[in-house]
């Protein structure tokens, strides 16, 4: 148990201060490249011998970002821009940004004006994935990202290096999925906040290191007796369930998180890079295989179905939709998610997510009422 707590504390410290990890890697003489949410080919960074590090903002009140980002920009992007403008990301060799929504389209210029010392590598995913031409396009588009990374790293990203890195990333996905399952047998230890920390920390560490720690956590959990959780069980969906205080309110109300469809968490781990063939083709195919996500064009209600399945599979009592304020792609999906859940008889709670503010009493009241209802 002591070892488990020590491992969890280590990840907690990393999530609380990702900058320390940046400084650590820089101190080791490594180059670090920032990766904007939600889907950035971090594998290319890794294969170039550099460290990919997620840029997920922070719980700050932006002071400079308002110069370039309108007030109705989501809090993650506002805080990322602010941190960039404040020099907090200094040391990054570049930042990679996918054009997944209108905010990213705007941010691609805002970053270049506001954070001049960190070069931006922009790219775009094809959204018409039903068209066969989309794959060829994405291979070429990733190729452009690859060239820019090679120039920064001063080395070629070889097919062999990529294939080896894909193994590491797929293995990490497997471990993270396993953790999500094992965690449900130990909801006394793996509280909503702890679960979040294990998931989120993956963005700030080299994958091999993170995999090793999570494997140890799983081993330690497996050695503990199964805990029969008497409280309520929910599934989270959205971009993030932050700030951290929010999840504490779940714990206070004896609500455990037994599964998630969060962009920052399980969406990162559920689609592997397929086996076989040319590495760049495989990487492109991973995007084509993604589904049930607000930044991926789909006509079907697959996300709603996935959430209902998660509820059933994990014996959950309800769904908490963590609706990122001013995240239009998520906001467009809310009616579908709510309807699919309700049609399946699943109670749904909608929480406003604003990373930059402290938790408001409205969320507390909503969660308390939800706990009484489910």
């Amino acid at each position, binding site marked *: 148990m002591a070892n488990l707590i020590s491992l969890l504390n280590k990840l907690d410290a990393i999530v609380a201060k990702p900058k320390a990890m940046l400084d650590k890697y820089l101190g080791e003489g490594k180059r670090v490249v920032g990766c904007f949410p939600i889907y950035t080919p971090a594998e290319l960074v890794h294969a170039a011998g550099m460290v990919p590090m997620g840029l997920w903002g922070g719980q700050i009140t932006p002071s400079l970002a308002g110069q370039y980002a309108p007030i109705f920009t989501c809090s993650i992007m506002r805080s990322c821009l602010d941190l960039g403008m404040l020099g907090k990301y200094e040391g990054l060799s570049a930042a990679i940004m996918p*054009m997944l929504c209108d905010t990213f389209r705007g941010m691609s210029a805002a970053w270049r004006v506001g954070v001049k010392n960190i070069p931006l590598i922009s790219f775009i995913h094809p*959204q018409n994935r039903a068209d066969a031409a989309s794959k060829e396009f994405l291979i070429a588009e990733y190729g452009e990202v690859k060239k820019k990374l090679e120039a920064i790293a001063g080395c070629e990203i070889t097919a062999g290096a990529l294939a080896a890195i894909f193994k590491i990333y797929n293995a990490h996905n497997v471990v993270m999925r396993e953790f999500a399952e094992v965690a449900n047998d130990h909801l006394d230890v793996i509280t909503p906040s702890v679960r979040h920390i294990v998931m989120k920390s993956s963005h700030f560490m080299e994958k091999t290191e993170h995999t090793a720690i999570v494997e140890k956590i799983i081993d330690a959990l497996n050695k503990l007796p199964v805990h029969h959780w008497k409280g309520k069980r929910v599934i989270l969906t959205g971009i993030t369930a932050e700030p951290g205080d929010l999840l504490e309110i779940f714990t206070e109300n004896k609500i455990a998180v037994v599964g998630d469809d969060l962009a920052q968490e399980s969406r990162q781990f559920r689609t592997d890079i397929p086996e076989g063939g040319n590495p760049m083709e495989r990487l492109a195919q991973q995007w084509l295989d993604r589904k049930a996500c607000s930044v991926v064009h*789909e006509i079907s209600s697959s996300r709603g179905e996935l959430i209902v399945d998660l509820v059933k599979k994990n014996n959950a009592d309800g769904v908490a939709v963590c609706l990122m304020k001013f995240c239009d792609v998520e906001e467009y999906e809310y009616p579908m998610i709510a309807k699919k859940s309700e049609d399946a008889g699943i109670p749904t709670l909608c929480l406003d997510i604003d990373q930059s503010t402290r938790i408001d009493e409205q969320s507390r009241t909503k969660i308390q009422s939800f706990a009484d209802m489910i």
Partner: protein
Amino acid sequence: MIMAEHTVQKPKRVLPKSRIMVAEQTSQVYKDARDAKARGEKIGWSTAIFPQEICETLDIPVLYPENNAASVSAKHLGDELIQHAEGPMRFPMNICSYARLNLGLADKIQDPTYNTADPLMSSPDFLLLANNSCTQLMKWYENLSRNLNVPIFFVDCLFNYYEEKPAEYKVKYIRKQIEGYIAAIENFSGKKFNWDKFLEVQKRSQINSKLFDEIIRLNARTPAPLSGFDFFNYMSCLVLCRGKESTTEIFKQLKEEVEEHIANSTSSFPAEEEFRVHWEGIACWPNLGHNLKILKNYGVNAVINGYVTAWNVVYEPGNLDSMAYAYATSSTNSLSTPSIMNMRADTIQNYNCDGMLCHVNRSCKLMTFHIFVGRNIVEEKTGVPCVNFDGDQSDTRVYSEAQFETRVQGLVEIMKQNKEARNG
């Protein structure tokens, strides 16, 4: 005395012939769709900058939700639909108000007795989606598709995040999608695609784009022959009927009217043009009257704006690569901020503008980013002042009449000082 005030009415402004022609053209588009539905034929809804030449070639009626939302809002009929989307349909209020209005409308018109919105759209059998204006269009159409159980034909137009021209592999992706769409819509509609007719439609589309461009350029004269807001009335010709001959007739008529203004030294701007500004962003459709009243009171003619030029899709007829390139680059929102704002700076210089009035449109994140990030480019390159005001294209809760007037006053003050300094 009170009675007298009530009985004295301002003479109604006589509409120029071209405006009457536009109204007739729009009515015909909606009628064609209604008639086709009555005959049991399929009709579509399309985003504003989709390769419409293809359905035009196949004689399939298509309606345009963005244009419809603008018209409904300008007639102050949008609130009820927006409330329906936010209320029973549960769409959050932060998404685009065109989308909320249209999603509300799409739901309402499933009740055959509903007839409040004007113009009233017929329910679609398929959707045409190009995301060159924004990614919200994609999410909006996904909802339409799910709610109405109709298919989407999608041309993913990407986004030019850097300033250089789209690379060949990007144009190829878009061209292949257009080819795929032609085959798919042929199959869906059961109609054979006539490539000769397609070429004619493309040529017509180019004639119309060129004509509109010529008309807009005439407003570079000082004083301008038209109130810049007049251009809003002709956007529908390019959005709804870019490949139709009726648009050519309207534009020829409009051009004659503009040339007549020039010959007679008159203008449709209803006051003396003391200042010329570039209007940045979509119109505040429900507040057009107030916008124009204030601008008129201060002698400010918004002689040009980027929104009305966004529908000029210029390409070489018969060349699908060229067409693909045009659809990837014509929309204001398909280009990076430096690309757009450098274009704006050039326009400001070419139209001899004294300032830039920027609509911080709550519905349009990307246009707002362009303003926030790019106004420095305009100010540095042209030396003209830029002033922002808050508004929305359809949601009446955002705009403040008092703020608009204060901001215009502020802009006028700076423009006046600049003018006095220039004139010694």
